[in-house]
């Protein structure tokens, strides 16, 4: 059964780490949004796709390269998120979860539909930046520089966000607002603004992941809906709203998925959902979530 080469082992480990990095950064955004807004942001995948497309547009129409795009695209998508929060999501305050879910799902369909209308379902390729062309032969495997960069960049951003939330004053506002928004606001914290900024940050993270993904996967209108289903499973496994939980489960589930592809490829597409089902049976609040 286990007759695979070290080459294949490390190859899948790398793929697993890459996917895990995307899962981590996307589920982190979902977790902070859910924590404060109580909304399961179904448009997350569409905004990730938009992030990739902003980089693609920048390069194609304006000659803006990868590195500026890595900053500009999350900014643009973040501002788009702020507008959505102020114009639409804010009105759902106090209503059932279901409304937020329906609204963000509808938004995802609209955004994706617009891009499909213009670009079909075929992918546009986006080049690896010059600085990260080529790779390194580690002996047991070949590591393309760009893939190494994606892992480092994604994890750095995840831990930076974790640090801000757990160790700074702004993070204390966010934690307090997440725990009890009414009391936090009556103590003087501008919770409506905090909420808007949190949504903006969450979707900016999705766009950042989208730019990172552009040179690896193709820039494609359906790239978001492909990944977002898995990311929702990751969030359920980690526990809705848990920051460290979403980072750790994102990375480890990516790796588990990679190894499954090695050992029993047929199961690799479902292994995360099987784990989700088991976690839901044993610990419904998720591995890192607090039981309600």
């Amino acid at each position: 059964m286990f007759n695979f080469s070290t080459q294949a082992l490390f190859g899948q480990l790398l793929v697993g780490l890459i996917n895990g990095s995307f899962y981590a950064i996307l589920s982190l955004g979902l977790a902070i949004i859910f924590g404060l807004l109580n909304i399961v942001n179904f448009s997350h995948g569409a905004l990730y796709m938009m992030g990739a497309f902003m980089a693609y547009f920048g390069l194609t129409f304006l000659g803006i390269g990868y590195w500026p795009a890595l900053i500009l695209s999350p900014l643009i998508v973040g501002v788009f998120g702020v507008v959505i929060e102020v114009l639409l999501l804010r009105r759902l305050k106090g209503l059932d979860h279901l409304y937020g879910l329906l609204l963000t799902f509808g938004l995802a369909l609209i955004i994706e539909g617009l891009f499909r209308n213009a670009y079909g379902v075929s992918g546009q390729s986006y080049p690896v930046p010059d600085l990260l062309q080529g790779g390194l032969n580690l002996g047991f495997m070949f590591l393309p520089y760009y893939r190494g960069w994606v892992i480092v960049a994604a994890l750095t951003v995840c831990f930076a966000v974790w640090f801000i939330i757990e160790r700074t004053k702004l993070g204390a506002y966010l934690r307090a607002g997440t725990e009890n928004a009414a009391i936090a606001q009556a103590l003087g914290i501008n919770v409506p603004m905090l909420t808007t900024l949190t949504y903006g940050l969450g979707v900016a993270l999705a766009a950042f992941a989208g730019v990172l993904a552009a040179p690896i996967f193709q820039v494609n209108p359906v790239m978001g809906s492909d990944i977002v289903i898995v990311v929702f499973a990751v969030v359920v496994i980690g526990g809705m709203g848990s920051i460290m939980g979403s980072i750790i489960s994102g990375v480890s589930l990516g790796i588990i998925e990679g190894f499954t592809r090695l050992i029993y490829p047929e199961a690799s597409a479902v292994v995360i959902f099987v784990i989700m089902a088991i976690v839901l049976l044993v610990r419904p609040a998720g591995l890192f979530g607090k039981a309600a």
Partner: protein
Amino acid sequence: MTTDNALEISGLHAYYGESHVLHGIDIHVRRGELVTLLGRNGSGRSSTIRSIMGLVGRRVGSIRIAGQETIGMPPHRIARLGVGWCPEERGIFSTLSTEENLALPPRARGEGLSIDELFEMFPNLKERRNSPGTKLSGGEQQMLAIARVLRTGADILVLDEITEGLAPVIVKRIGEVVRKLKSLGYTMLLAEQNFVFAAPLADRHYVIEEGHVVMEVAHHELEAKMGKLNELLGV
């Protein structure tokens, strides 16, 4: 318009969804005065206080804080006028350490007490500064809730049932703190079940029943009106 009122509520109605819980409350608290809201459970004292903070579903009427109308303001702006609120449920955050809880509210106005001054006033909190806020005992959490609003520079304190469920020694300790705050010139509105605790501290009392103010008693009238009070409070 009297300007020596720190807090002036008139014709206040409050609603939670369909249910109408306050029916035209009129209350005022002068600068530096300590006033209590007495009444049976469910009479509307917390709702009055939550209305001041802008936390009821809907409120109609007038609530002036330091002369400024706040009926249309969001809660964080009301807090920043210098109103410090201790919620009945204390509102200590479990995801924040004791010190983070203490430092959480943004400055309202003026100086406020420093963290060091507060640790001097509440030594227990200093020892437990790194513990999660909700790992503290009930009494410590209450001290933390009081200390937290003193740091912001708020000079109008609205304190909801700060002695509820606490041991007599802690109640006594809180009484000392309240007396000290009064001597420092704070304006206080206190919702209290514990009449024995409130009586010697307060300048005036309002008795609330079913969302109406049914009686107002100044400190010097207490003895004369004791019979009526006992009847209303059921003590």
